[in-house]
């Protein structure tokens, strides 16, 4: 049967269990720390590679501020010259924050976009990362295009019945483009 429930036993037992468990956890944490970092890094690199042209050397993450928002971005350099930027851009979508990885060339052309996370409605806004037609229009979007949905006078075809999500997406992309233009200019000066 169980040990006696006096204060000494209780305190001893609980402390011992906590100590052993913490030790076990510290061990497992140490062992898995590397693989966890590797897995996260792999996912990040994959999402960046999706939106940047091939070749080029990828920099570490850098952060800069623009228009009151902080952006994390990565620079892909070829021959020592920045060839493209991958920017993490967040806006408020329909169901929650919408985070994109946007690949932008220094002249403001959008190379490609990918969705990092969203809380949009399944079947409607959630199509932002499955609908072929919506996704393909972002590839190589010229710097001359107006990055707004057609309803707002721009050149972007919104997802049917998901104007708010489409607007949020467009805003995230146009923020990223404006950001890149500003750091590209700053780099030139």
């Amino acid at each position, binding site marked *: 049967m169980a*040990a006696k429930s006096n204060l000494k036993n*209780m305190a001893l037992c609980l402390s011992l269990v906590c100590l052993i468990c913490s030790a076990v956890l510290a061990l497992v944490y140490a062992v898995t720390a590397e693989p966890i970092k590797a897995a996260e890094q792999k996912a990040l690199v994959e999402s960046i590679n999706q939106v940047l042209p091939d070749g080029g050397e990828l920099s570490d993450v850098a952060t800069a501020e623009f228009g009151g928002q902080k952006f994390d971005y990565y620079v892909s350099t070829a021959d020592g010259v920045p060839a493209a930027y991958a920017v993490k851009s967040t806006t408020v979508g329909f169901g929650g924050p919408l985070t994109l990885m946007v690949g932008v060339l220094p002249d403001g052309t959008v190379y490609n976009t990918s969705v990092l996370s969203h809380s949009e409605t399944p079947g409607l806004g959630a199509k932002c990362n499955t609908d072929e037609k919506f996704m393909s229009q972002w590839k190589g979007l010229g710097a001359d295009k107006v990055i707004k949905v057609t309803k707002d006078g721009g050149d972007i075809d919104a997802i049917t019945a998901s104007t708010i999500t489409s607007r949020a997406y467009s805003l995230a992309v146009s923020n990223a483009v404006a950001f890149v233009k500003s750091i590209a200019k700053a780099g030139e000066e």
Partner: protein
Amino acid sequence: MSKWSTLTDGFVKNNPTFVLVLGMCPTLATTTSAMNGLEMGLATLFVLVLSNIVISLLAPLVPDKVHIPVYIVVIATFVTVLQFIMQAYTPDAYKTLGLFIPLIVVNCIVLGRAEAFANKHGVLESLLDGIGVGLGFTVSLTVIGIVREILGSGSVFGWKFISGDGILAFVMAPGAFLVLGYLMVLFNKYLKKS
């Protein structure tokens, strides 16, 4: 109680979802697809088996008045171990299941089996009970996931058999309650012996 019945009770007689009605939160939240339900079930199975084993070993040494916190610490340890393992080796599943992985700690099934079974039985029986109830839970979740995925996305385990979407309400909140409710009716009518 034979070893075989300890193992198989978890499927119908002690089915955690439809009979014991425990672990409702992950049941409703993670069954948006068959795969998600399966993953959640297996994750819970992992914790359930390990904690059953350890608690059945520890039970004679633990003073009665602190047994709940002690069991909880043991369970929390295994849950955290699972978290790290999943984060490192199955990052996609880790992201999908999200908050519900640490919530396995408060999954009434795990603490419930520890209280009701593991602290009164030997290691082998506790292991079998853990496997039985854990598999029962996994099967229940997978079945609910299959139904919700078929109705809501027109696919099974990702294999789509209609183009476009299904009745989306089923992969969202209301669908969870409705599917569980109706499945419970079927379970009561056809499987429950009483």
